[in-house]
């Protein structure tokens, strides 16, 4: 199946940059990864959860450390389970009050990093930690791509089911309650979905930059959109463009793909601010 796909890509793609198989794989990975993160990002931005998802990404270090400690070889599975539990724990503690949300999240963020570094640096080497920090999409293989494709389909279906109630509760939780929406359940499912998407992507993008893929396209799109469908559409387009342009730029410059993609998205964000100003998109 992959051979057919590769042949098709050779015919369709106008440039020789994607001649090598690892470049084709990386391109496919980015085309599968970025749209789901971009869709989920619209709600993360609207709900002011950028800091939350950042802390969630950091917890991948702790998750990987826990996997090492328990001797579990399937790293992605450990990351997902750990990420979901971590996300639910942050939400739970935010609800019960105590310190303000940003303080709570900061505590979880640094705890996740510290725990991860302690566990991963056992034996005196930071190699395990640093590979997770930066990620490498050029190392992705056909098997991983299949999982990403399944995740994209599953994630989009979950997002379709969850979106409307989540949107109402984002506008006003009491209003959502009064319409029979189980606000807490919907919010918990959302953070779980974000956790799964982030953890699936983190091996390829890295702990340091994963949050940017969630937040930047959605934030740029928000500057340009006036309706919810526009927000989703613009966010996905910006994320796909960032992925493709970033990959080409990284190949040309010989630098990190993840970083180039994020820089590209940051550029789109800057552009969106300019366009918003020029067009005075307010209403």
């Amino acid at each position: 199946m992959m051979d057919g796909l590769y042949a098709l890509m050779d015919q369709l793609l106008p440039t020789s940059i994607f001649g090598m198989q690892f470049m084709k794989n990386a391109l496919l990975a980015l085309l599968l990864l970025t749209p789901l993160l971009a869709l989920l990002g619209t709600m993360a931005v609207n709900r002011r959860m950028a800091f939350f998802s950042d802390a969630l990404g950091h917890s991948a270090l702790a998750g990987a450390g826990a996997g090492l400690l328990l001797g579990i070889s399937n790293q992605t599975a450990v990351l997902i389970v750990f990420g979901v539990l971590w996300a639910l724990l942050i939400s739970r503690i935010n609800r019960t009050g105590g310190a303000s949300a940003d303080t709570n999240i900061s505590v979880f963020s640094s705890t996740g990093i510290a725990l991860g570094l302690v566990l991963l640096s056992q034996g005196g080497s930071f190699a395990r930690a640093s590979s997770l920090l930066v990620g490498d999409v050029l190392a992705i293989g056909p098997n991983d791509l299949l999982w990403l494709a399944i995740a994209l389909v599953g994630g989009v279906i979950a997002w379709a089911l969850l979106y409307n109630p989540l949107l109402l509760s984002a506008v006003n939780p009491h209003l959502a309650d009064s319409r029979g929406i189980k606000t807490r359940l919907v919010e918990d499912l959302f953070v779980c979905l974000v956790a799964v998407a982030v953890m699936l992507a983190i091996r390829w993008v890295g702990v340091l930059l994963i949050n940017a893929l969630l937040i930047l396209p959605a934030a740029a799109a928000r500057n340009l959109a006036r309706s919810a469908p526009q927000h989703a559409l613009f966010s996905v387009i910006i994320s796909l463009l960032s992925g493709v342009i970033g990959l080409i730029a990284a190949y040309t410059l010989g630098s990190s793909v993840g970083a180039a993609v994020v820089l590209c998205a940051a550029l789109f964000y800057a552009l969106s601010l300019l366009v918003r100003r020029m067009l005075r998109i307010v209403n």
Partner: protein
Amino acid sequence: MQANEAIHRCGLCRIEMRGVSVRMEQDTLIQDVNLHAHCGQLTVLIGPNGGGKTTLLRAVLGQVPYEGKILHLDEQDKPFAQVRVGYVPQQLPFDKQMPLTVRDLLAAALTRRPVWTGVGRKARQAAENALILAQAQGLINKRLGALSGGELQRVLLALALSPAPDLLILDEPVSGVDHNGQALFLDTVNALRRQQHMAILMVSHDWTLVREYADQVALIDKTTRIVGTAEEVFDSPAFAASFPHTHGPGRSA
């Protein structure tokens, strides 16, 4: 009699609150509230800030645990199973910059298709129909954050009225809304009360409006101090005790 007519035409006859108390940790927010709200009638809850009006509404909405009974009864005093409650919250701060139109909000509430995939003709029609009920047709393409206070409340009313509720709960729906907006909102509610015979519970601080629109007024100050017509309540010693600085409510609004 108009009231009798109303009783015959609606499924839900009244909401009966019997000895309703709400406690949060050590504090008693309301104690032993007794109140009937009939369909086709506008019952206004008044009372000092912190007196428990919003708490009572939240108990009726089932959003806080309470002691006592809140019964939804039909005309034969039998429990009325499927009570649809429409709720217009107090104007709460929401993210005014959010890319979200009135159409999106209504489509998300009224239809199943996820709004991020677009709003189809059916969903748009549902949104339009809802807005017509609240006389807010013209607002469908506006961004939610760009609405005036009065416009936003009418959109929230449209939402509360779809699907048609048996009980409509309005928590200070017109505070912070300009005078024209208030009149338009309350005239709409008033017309609905007559046409659709729903029971309406409203919290208000505006004595002039209370006088003009309320069928029944309940003074809630930790408990039900007095229930009656606007005149009866405003002239009562209980009212003077709860609002010591208000002299002659008709003139003080």
